[in-house]
């Protein structure tokens, strides 16, 4: 009979697997219940341990080290709260793209992280599907607003409501960047252009790019906002700057095939056709610029460090170019901090952690060590805080300037938001880089509208 034992074990294993798969469905379906009253403060000496998931822990070097240091400072100030940091699970090259799937798989086990850092484009999904806890309900609207006001320096006005949904704050905006025009001053000089006067409109960008190409033999400009891999945050900036929107203001109707948007995409296509912009993938574009083979790039300010390391000299920055006669409307990329804990003590501990990570002290550490922009912008004028750092890093100025006129990166509605976003960007990519007719955007919009709740029209 012993001979059969292995086979039996195999059958038992199959059954166990099947059963656990059933359990999975059961747990995800369970509704979450948000407490109606404000959660109590932690009692003195009440021990709580929480898990904090952030994609910053997925990247070695300054990111992991800075966040580990901050967690250390937090636990020193709150000895009763133990924080276990973790990175999102998953297999993407960029841990930041695994945040939602990671949360989903952990929710399936009934054991999500207590605090998580999620991107702004995931806001709808985080609130409605992942059931992030509304902070206004947990700790009271006053406490949330008081945190935004800060001890000394308040949040930038445009940044405060980026994690709000239906008038309630779910996420506290934590880090973000805006699209910036980086250019290579050495190549500008070689091409006879004035590095002190970077192009301010798309028409000037095209001219400068063609000059760079003909005089230096290098490529002109790469706009990293027009491919599926670039996602749509900075594409939204370009469309908004031409007076359009990718989705209507009430977020019910797709509008990326309307005239202002089509016009903007056509302008980008024209730059590829004229040879001002090379046909490159995102990776080739960013590395080409870092190598000094492309004169300009429109890119997230988050890549400044990489460019600085690659170019050694000559890296300069300017605000996002405008369409002639129209105002520039930069949108933001970045992430907020959400609470997913269900237990009131863990929720309170999570809120304490969020308060600490968005404090003046934490931003001073994060900005100087990682280079992220502080959302408490006035810190850069305080000699005791970030002024010395800001003086040493003039490249952050366009990013700071753009904060004042920034608009939120709008997330697409519904559960299929990723398909809608990727579908739109694939259509844009084939127009700009593969020469498809700009009118194909309309067909794509009609097709994707079916994925939007209510038919998207």
């Amino acid at each position: 009979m012993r001979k059969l034992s292995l086979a039996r074990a195999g059958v038992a294993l199959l059954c166990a697997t099947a059963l656990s798969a059933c359990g999975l469905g059961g747990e995800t379906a369970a509704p979450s219940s948000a407490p109606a009253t404000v959660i109590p403060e932690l009692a003195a000496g009440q021990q709580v341990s929480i898990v904090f998931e952030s994609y910053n822990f997925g990247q070695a070097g300054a990111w992991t080290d800075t966040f580990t240091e901050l967690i250390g400072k937090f636990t020193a100030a709150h000895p009763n709260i133990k924080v276990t940091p973790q990175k999102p699970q998953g297999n993407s090259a960029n841990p930041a793209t695994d945040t939602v799937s990671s949360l989903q798989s952990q929710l399936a086990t009934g054991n999500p992280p207590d605090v998580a850092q999620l991107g702004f484009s995931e806001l709808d999904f985080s609130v409605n599907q992942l059931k992030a806890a509304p902070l206004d309900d947990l700790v009271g609207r006053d406490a949330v607003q008081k945190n935004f006001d800060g001890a000394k320096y308040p949040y930038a006005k445009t940044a405060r409501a980026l994690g709000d949904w239906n008038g309630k704050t779910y996420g506290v905006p934590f880090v973000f960047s805006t699209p910036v025009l980086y250019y290579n001053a050495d190549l500008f000089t070689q091409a006879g252009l004035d590095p002190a006067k970077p192009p301010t409109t798309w028409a000037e960008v095209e001219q400068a790019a063609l000059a760079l190409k003909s005089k230096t033999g290098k490529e002109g400009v790469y706009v990293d906002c027009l491919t599926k891999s670039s996602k749509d945050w900075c594409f939204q900036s370009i469309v908004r700057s031409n007076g359009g929107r990718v989705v209507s203001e009430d977020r019910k109707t797709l509008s990326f095939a309307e005239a202002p948007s089509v016009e903007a995409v056509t302008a980008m296509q024209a730059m590829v056709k004229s040879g001002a912009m090379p046909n490159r993938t995102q990776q080739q574009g960013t590395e080409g610029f870092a190598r000094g083979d492309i004169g300009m790039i429109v890119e997230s300010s988050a890549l400044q460090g990489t460019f600085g390391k690659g170019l050694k000299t000559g890296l300069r920055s300017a605000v996002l170019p405008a369409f002639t006669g129209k105002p520039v409307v930069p949108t933001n990329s970045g992430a907020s901090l959400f609470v997913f804990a269900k237990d009131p003590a863990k929720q309170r501990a999570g809120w304490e952690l969020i308060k600490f990570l968005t404090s003046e002290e934490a931003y001073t550490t994060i900005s100087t060590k990682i280079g992220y922009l502080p959302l408490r912008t006035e810190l850069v004028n305080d000699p005791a805080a970030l002024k010395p750092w800001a003086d040493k890093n003039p490249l952050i100025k366009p990013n700071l300037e753009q904060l004042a006129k920034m608009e939120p990166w709008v997330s697409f509605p519904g559960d299929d938001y990723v398909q809608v976003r990727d579908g739109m960007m694939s259509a844009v990519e084939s127009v700009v880089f593969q020469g498809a007719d700009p009118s194909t955007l309309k067909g794509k919009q009609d097709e994707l509208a079916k994925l939007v709740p209510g038919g998207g029209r």
Partner: protein
Amino acid sequence: MTAAAVVSPVDDEAVGESGRARSIAGHVVLTLLSVACVFPIYWLYATSLRAPEDVYSLSVLPWPLSLENYADAFAKTDMVGMLVNTTVMAVLTALGQLLVALLAAYAFAAWRFRFQKLLYLMFVGTWLVPFQVTMLPNYVLLSRLDLLDTLAGVIIPTLCSAMGVLLLRQHLMGFPKELLDAARMDGRSSWGILWTVVVPTLRPVLAALGILLAITAWNEYFWPALVLRRGNDVVQLGLRSFMGTEGNDWGPLMATAGLTCLPVFLLYLVLQRHIVNAFVRSGLK
């Protein structure tokens, strides 16, 4: 070795000008293929040996040579810990899979029992189920057993290798039954026969299979990435920690990748005969 095997029949038949031309063409094709295979590995080591500011350089020879990327990789990650962990993981996984495969194959080959064919088919069938299908149930099970974030969590769900069972069973089917019968008549128990008669005869196969399984486990990325959330405990995960939102840190990434390849290269150099054997044998019988 493979190249020689492919080309030699042509050489034997090569008569006159056209035969020589064909032989030269064959060599040219094979040379191009070899360069295509080897070049990415060369580029990996070349990039890892460039100075950090030259990492984006496209020059074929990395000059001046610099070990700074290696120093950077050691400074930013616990390289030694990762290499030790990965070795432990790969060795334990391979040993576990060998043991399970040996016992299962022995049962399937040496006895006749009810539902034998059906059970064997089920084993083979698991080979056809993509890992992504069993990934979440396995993950949930690990979470309930509290094994997430442990090396045990990485190893235990992978302990049964259908390929191992298949391969060993095929070998055991060709094992002379007379030997088993003789041992039984000598009064050996089934267990005794396995370890004193079967295993010593199968040693070359076991060695070859063990190496294949260890290399597969060493290279595994997907499953450890799911289970180990709180750190980069194995070297394949350490590699990813140099990629991120703010761009890829190519220098230390290539240095870590270079170090990760070394143990497998060494294993291959030392045990080349066994590895080639493993591939050849798996296609036999």
